[in-house]
């Protein structure tokens, strides 16, 4: 995988449920224990109801491209051989947005509104990390 050498995210306590789900092949978001609002990434409290406490829940892994960019500048050596590469914003069917990468497509073929679905790749020694790939509508 081209992702070898990428900065591996630390599994912080607030994001542990996300990475546990990824290991099972499930894309997870946080669900407020009080009002049920979904959010990503993890937050200590709910911006809608200010309730504390949330549970990681699996989502469909389906969504569409909400926006994207194409990075040409190298900010970290792991990306030196990858520029230009795209970073995407996926709007999940369930509502929350996620920043990610899209595999199986050239950066300049990406369009807003394209349907995508989650796929997982190994990151570092023992993490699975979600990315997205195009899907049929």
């Amino acid at each position, binding site marked *: 995988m081209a992702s070898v050498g990428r900065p591996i995210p630390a599994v*912080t306590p607030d*994001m542990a449920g996300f990475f546990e789900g990824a290991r099972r092949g499930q894309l997870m978001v946080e669900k407020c224990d009080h009002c049920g609002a979904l959010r990503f*990434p993890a937050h200590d409290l709910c911006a809608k109801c200010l309730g504390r406490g949330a549970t990681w829940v699996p989502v469909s892994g389906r969504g569409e491209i909400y926006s994207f*960019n*194409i*990075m*040409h500048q190298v900010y970290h050596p792991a990306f030196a051989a990858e520029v230009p590469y795209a970073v995407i914003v996926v709007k999940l069917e369930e509502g929350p947005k996620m*920043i990610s990468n899209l595999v199986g497509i050239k950066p300049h073929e990406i369009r807003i*509104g394209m349907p995508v679905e989650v796929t997982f790749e190994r990151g570092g020694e023992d993490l699975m990390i979600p990315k997205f790939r195009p899907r049929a509508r």
Partner: protein
Amino acid sequence: MTTDLRAKCAIAGLGQTRMGKNFDHPNAMGFAIEAIELALEDAGLSREDLDGLLVNPGVTWMENAMASFSLQQAMGLTDLTLTATMNLGGATAGAMIMHATQAIAAGMANVVACVFADAPLRPPSPEKGKAAGGSAAAYGFARGLNAYYGQFGVNAAYAFVAQRHMHLYGTRQEHLGAIAVAERDWANLNPAAQFYDAPMTMADYNAARWVVEPFHLYDCCLVSNGGLAVIVTSAERAKSLKHPPVYILGMGQGHPGGDPMDTLVSGAPLAKKTAFKMAGIELGDIDFAELYDCYTFTVLVTLEDYGFCKKGEGGPFVEGGRIGPKGSLPVNTGGGQLSSFYMWGMTPVAEAVVQMRGEAAARQVPRHDIGLVSGNGGILSTHSTLVLGANP
């Protein structure tokens, strides 16, 4: 309850250090002190006259939680009655001037220095013969999953918002380019601009390297070392000082919250409402505009949000040189942050003062009775509006 602050205070002094790749001081504090000294001299005041000090720290002194106190000590300022370290990103310059005006009008201070300084560029390193640090290092931060996905820095996040504007409203690359070219045309008339000697055509704009699509190199501001300060005092006192007062007619802030990708709207509509009401003006009264331009795209959205054109029509609006030196609406008349220098919200404030005083030489706009200044922080997150006037 309302207190009429219209024309109660004025900008009486402007201090600007050398801008860009200069290493006149080892850190931002040095640039801040030089800028304040220059502003005091410009106003015909001395250090002892200052009783207020407001500081907007740039990225290189963020770790200094009490920057204004550090600066007070470094400058040997005593018996201040007003100080604060303020940060609304690029909206801070306007917000500092508002805070100063409110305090002066309330009798809590008399002469207030408002300063921004930063030194993110490092001198060339002797071993490697090339610059270490620089804008990429200072602004390319990322954590956690974003770093894994290669999403680094503010450019990349702003690009998401611009891309949605292009998708929803049909905004084209050439529309962003028209803003970059117009500001360059202005910079070519401003000897203090970093791109004074470098004309740029649309072809040059398109040929420049990409930073992050949809932003070319010249869609992004010129990260600079330097310091900029203004002196705010009462309108009465300002009249007795060296330069004609630049009256503060209206002030406002707007911070919409939410996700700018969803709305594509800045805080300008909110901030404008307060500021224009205070100033008693309408959009048609504006002679020139100094709009916060961390990116070309920010100018496009800001033009829409003040109502110079309808939402989504910022692209066609800037075509044909409308905001350039020969256009009907002069915008960012010193070359802005794109072609002159990036000092956060102080760049548009400084140029407005120069224009208001009629000291802009080759780039002087013919009518300069009322100027609009905008500040924008984060990603369309915070916004400040100033309406400045040559007359009370």
